[in-house]
C-alpha cells in the first residue's frame, strides 16, 4: 500500500485555492453592495457598484451550485 502523494498535493492546492477564491468573491461582493447602499443613502447613485457586487455574489453562488453538482452523483 503506497501513499498517493500526488493526490494529496492536488487536494491541498485545490482546497486552499477554492476556499480563498470563494471568500474573496463573497467578501468583495458584500463590501461593494454595502458601499453602494451607503452611497444611495447619502443621495448618490451606486447602480454600477451594486451590480458589480451582486455579480461577484452571483459567481460565489455558482461555486455553491458547482459544489452541489459534485455532491449529487445523479448529475454526473
Amino acid at each position, binding site marked *: *500500500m*503506497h*501513499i*498517493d502523494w500526488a*493526490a*494529496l498535493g*492536488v*487536494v*491541498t492546492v*485545490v*482546497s*486552499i485555492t*477554492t*476556499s*480563498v477564491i*470563494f*471568500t*474573496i468573491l*463573497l*467578501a*468583495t*461582493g*458584500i*463590501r461593494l*453592495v*454595502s*458601499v453602494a*447602499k*451607503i452611497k444611495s443613502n447619502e443621495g448618490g447613485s451606486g447602480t454600477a457598484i451594486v451590480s458589480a457586487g451582486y455579480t461577484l*455574489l452571483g459567481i*460565489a*453562488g455558482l461555486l*455553491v451550485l458547482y*459544489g*452541489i453538482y*459534485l*455532491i*449529487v*452523483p*445523479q448529475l454526473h
Partner: protein
Amino acid sequence: MSQIDITIGSPIVHLAARVLASLPGAHRHHATRSGWETDVTELFVVITVIAVALIFDFTNGFHDSANAMAGPVATGALRPRTAVILGALLNVVGACLSTEVAKTISGGFFDDALITVPMILAGLLGAIIWNLMTWLFGLPSSSSHALFGGLIGAVVVGAGLASVNGWVIVSKVLLPAIVAPLVAGIAAAWATRLAYRITRKTPSVHSNTGFRYGQAFTASMVALAHGTSDGQKTMGVITLVLIAANLQASGTGPQLWVIIAAGIAIGLGTYSGGWRIMRTMGKGIVEIETPQGAASGAATSATILASAHLGFGLSTTHVSTGSILGSGVGRGAEVRWSVASRMVFAWLLTLPGAGLVGGLAALLADQGVVGVIALIVLLAGVCLVIYALSRRHRITHANVTDSHEVLVLAAAAPPSTYPDDPRLETPPKLKKKKVKRPKEKSAA
C-alpha cells in the same frame, strides 16, 4: 419494502418463541460466508446486526451534526433548531441520493473474506460505544475511524494480529489525521484573513447578513455531502449482512427499505443534535465571529469536496475542526489549544479505543445466541450509563452557545452548588476572556 416481508417479516413472528426454545442448544457452528444456513438462530443474529447498524448510523448522525452546523449555530447564522432540522433533512436527502455503496467494509485494513457476521456486530458495538464516550466528553472524532477500529478489533480477536495491514493504518488513518486539519486549517486561516481585510471598512450590519448567508450555504453543502458519504456506510454493512445470510442476491445494491431506514437513522441522529460536540466545536476551540465562520465554512466544504473527488480521503470531522482552528488563527483570536490537543488525542485513540471494545465484544459475539443477547444487554446498559452521566450537565439546543465547556462529572463543578448550580438557570455571559465562576461564594 416487499423484500423484508418475504424474507424477514414472516419468520419474525415466530422468532421470539423459537429463539427462546433454541437457546440451550444454541452453540451451533458460526456463520461464515461459505457455510451459512438461514435458520432461526442466524436470522436472529442478522436482525440484531441490522438493528445495531441503524443505531450506529444514529450515533454517526449526532456525532457529525456539529461538523456542518457548529459554525452557523455559534455565529447565529442559523438558530440551533433550524440548523439541526436543515442538517437532518439534507442528510436524509444525501443518503437517499447515494447510489453506489462501498464494495468493501474492510477499507483495505484486512482481508474482506475474514469477516463474519458476529465480527460485524462486534465492530459496530465498538464503534457505537466509542462514539457515545467521545460524545459524553464533547469530543469530535471520526465515526468512520470508530467503525474501522471496531471491525479491526473484532478481526484481530478472530484471526490474529497478523491479519491486519498496519501500513494501511498509517496511510489511511494517521497521515490523514495530520493532513486534514493542516490543509483545512491553512485554507481557513488565509480565507479568514482575507475576509477581514476586504470588509475592514464595511459596517458589520451590512457584512454580517452576507456572511451569514455564505455560512448557511456552505454548511448545507457539508450536511448534504455527509449524507451521501456516511449514509452509505450503514447501507453497505446491512447489505453485506443480508447477502452473507443469503437473503439477498450477491452483487445487488441496497434494498429500498435499507436506503430509507439508513437515511432516517442518520437524519434522526443529526436532528438530535449532539449538542455536547456542537458546543466544543462552536465555542470550545475558539469564539467564532461571523466573517470567520463564513471563511471556515468555505474551507470545510472546499476541502471535503476536493478530498472526495480528487482521491485522497479525509475525515469530515478532522476537516471541520481544522477549519475552525485555522479560522481562529487567521483572525488572531485566542485559540484554546488545550481543547484542540485533547481532540487530537481523541482522534489518535479512536482506532485503538474502538478496536479494544470491538475485540472484547467479538469474544462475546462468538458465543452464539447467548453471547449476542448478552451483547445487546451490555450495549443497552452502557448507553443508559452514558446517558445518565450526560444528564449531570445537560447541553441542549437552548444552552449550546452559553458556555464553552462540556462538563462531565459532578466533580468538575463545585460540589456545594450542585445540583442547584446557578449556571443551570442563568449561565454567565462570556466576554472575550473567560469569566471566573462564582465558586468562592458558595464555598464560604
